[in-house]
């Protein structure tokens, strides 16, 4: 029941965005994925959600390969992601956005929807409940009917996270979830993630450049640089790794606890 990535290589024309990346994530793990800009973090997510075809390597999730999965089947496998640039449906309301996230919890298509038998109605109610739960979790229930446009950036980010939660994923890929968020919101979001992490077996991979956030939240951190994995381990170790410092951090964040109370 793990995510195993082995020898993953992605090329775009002449550019190699990922080179033989290996990564194993176990249930209940919360992994921080860091690396300089253009290191290939988003590309890794794109591979997992089947938006990019790897040139080589394998990806197994819960014992089955991901290679043959069509992009729209990824959610059905229990994988959800957020997008680095907002990827909301701006013509829909906030709730509808999140309900699309719960798409995989229903089965009815056009035909059934047209006549709307009891089964469909129950399903709709279930989807709505899932959506409302997710919205409640991020505190957006009161705004549920507002169109998902022209809201502050931070609010929209939360909608997106609620949408990913509505998938009820077993693997959650968060691509810079807190960029553009204010400090409070970061704290709240960290609490949310931590809570999820503690109460369920969900695997979470977070890409973030916000060091305090990542270092505090994730026990394990993976660092990519120019498509290669250069570090993988406990956060304390990784942040002192000279290669990581060199390529990414520049300085060691609070390397020495000496000055602390």
């Amino acid at each position, binding site marked *: 029941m793990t995510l195993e990535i082995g020898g993953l290589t992605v090329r*775009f024309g002449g*550019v190699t965005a990922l080179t033989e990346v290996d990564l194993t994530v176990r249930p209940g793990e919360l992994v921080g994925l860091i*690396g*300089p*800009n*253009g*290191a290939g*973090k*988003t*590309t890794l997510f794109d591979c997992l959600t089947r938006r990019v075809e790897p040139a080589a390597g394998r990806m197994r999730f819960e014992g089955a390969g991901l290679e043959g999965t069509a992009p729209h089947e990824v959610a059905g496998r229990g994988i959800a992601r957020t997008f*680095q*640039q907002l990827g909301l449906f701006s013509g829909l309301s906030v709730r509808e956005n999140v309900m699309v996230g719960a798409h995989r919890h229903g089965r009815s298509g056009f035909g059934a929807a047209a006549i709307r038998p009891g089964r469909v109605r129950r399903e709709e109610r279930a989807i709505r409940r899932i959506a409302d739960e997710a919205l409640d*979790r*991020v*505190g*957006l229930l009161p705004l549920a009917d507002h169109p998902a446009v*022209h*809201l*502050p*950036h*931070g*609010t929209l980010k*939360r909608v997106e996270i609620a949408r990913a939660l509505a998938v009820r994923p077993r693997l959650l890929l968060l691509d*810079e979830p807190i*960029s*553009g*968020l*204010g*400090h*409070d*919101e970061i*704290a*709240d*979001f*960290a*609490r*949310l993630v*931590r*809570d999820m992490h503690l109460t369920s077996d969900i695997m979470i991979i977070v890409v973030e*450049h916000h*060091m*305090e956030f990542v*270092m*505090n*939240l994730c*026990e394990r951190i993976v660092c990519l640089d120019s498509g290669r994995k250069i570090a993988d381990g406990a956060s304390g170790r990784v942040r002192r790794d000279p290669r990581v410092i060199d*390529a*990414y*951090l*520049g*300085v*060691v*964040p*609070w*390397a*020495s606890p*000496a*000055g*602390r*109370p």
Partner: protein
Amino acid sequence: MGEPGGPAVTGPAGDGPSRRPPAGGAPVPRPPFLRVRNLRTGYGPARVLQGVDLEVEEGEMVAVLGQNGAGKTTLLRALSGLVRGRGSVGLRGTELLGRAPEEIARRGVGHVPEGRGVFAPLTVEENLRVGAHLRPGSELAEDMRHVLTCFPVLRAHLSQPAGSLSGGERQMLAIGRALMARPRLLLLDEPSRGLAPLATRRLFDVLRAISTHERVAMILVEQKTQLAAEFAARSLVMESGRLVTPGMAGPPGDPSTQGTRPWHGSPPGPGTWQGSGPPSTPDVWQGPGNPSTPDVWQGSGEVWQGPPSGGRSAPGRPRPWGRSHG
């Protein structure tokens, strides 16, 4: 119009005019480089800016902070003409309000918007060339070299469509493109968003260098308050549609001030960013006069402590997030 709408703010560089003798030796004091008076705007019935006053001098970097949705982006959009405002915005004495964005841009205002408007189908190089299209062709090569030294990452991607860049690369391209026009005033909407720590630092170095050497005025909206505080000459807070100086309502970092929760609630200490490790660039990471308050982000413990309570959330206001997960 009078200024009861908000405190007239004069930053530390308020005595800027005296730096250069007024042209023609007239006794009239030169107006500030950028003077915003009672700027009001909104979307439809929603009023967002309710009388913003601001003065920025050449070469000065002003940070605008504020709560999510406070209207920081709207302020920049109003300055660059993307939304229509009322009041007055004078740039070196010329009124900008009412002018089209392109005319404002031609007067030397560069705006790197929140949405990172890069021209997705165009290559990186073409994007940069578009940025420089108003400049004499002879300087193109030099400007290009300059921007590529500022953002060396872009060099490897010159012929790649901008739409296929990574988030951070796009960000750098957007800023690079704005720099290509050699603006006099640069409006940056969360420039550090999506940038790696090292890249952020480099970016701010670059911005500082440009602002000091080329005397480019900058208004930058930032969420990373401490970063802004360290680089910017002044930090202002957007609050109920007005800009206020945090110092006036209470010193930065003083959690006692009510109603400005994002600003005061944020950990102002640079300790989070910079340990006592290699003090390689202390000037970068440590703004003058900013006491280190490293208690916020406990690097050692795994417990998320969060910022000190009290200042962050006004009493009686439920926090929107994570309520059931204490």
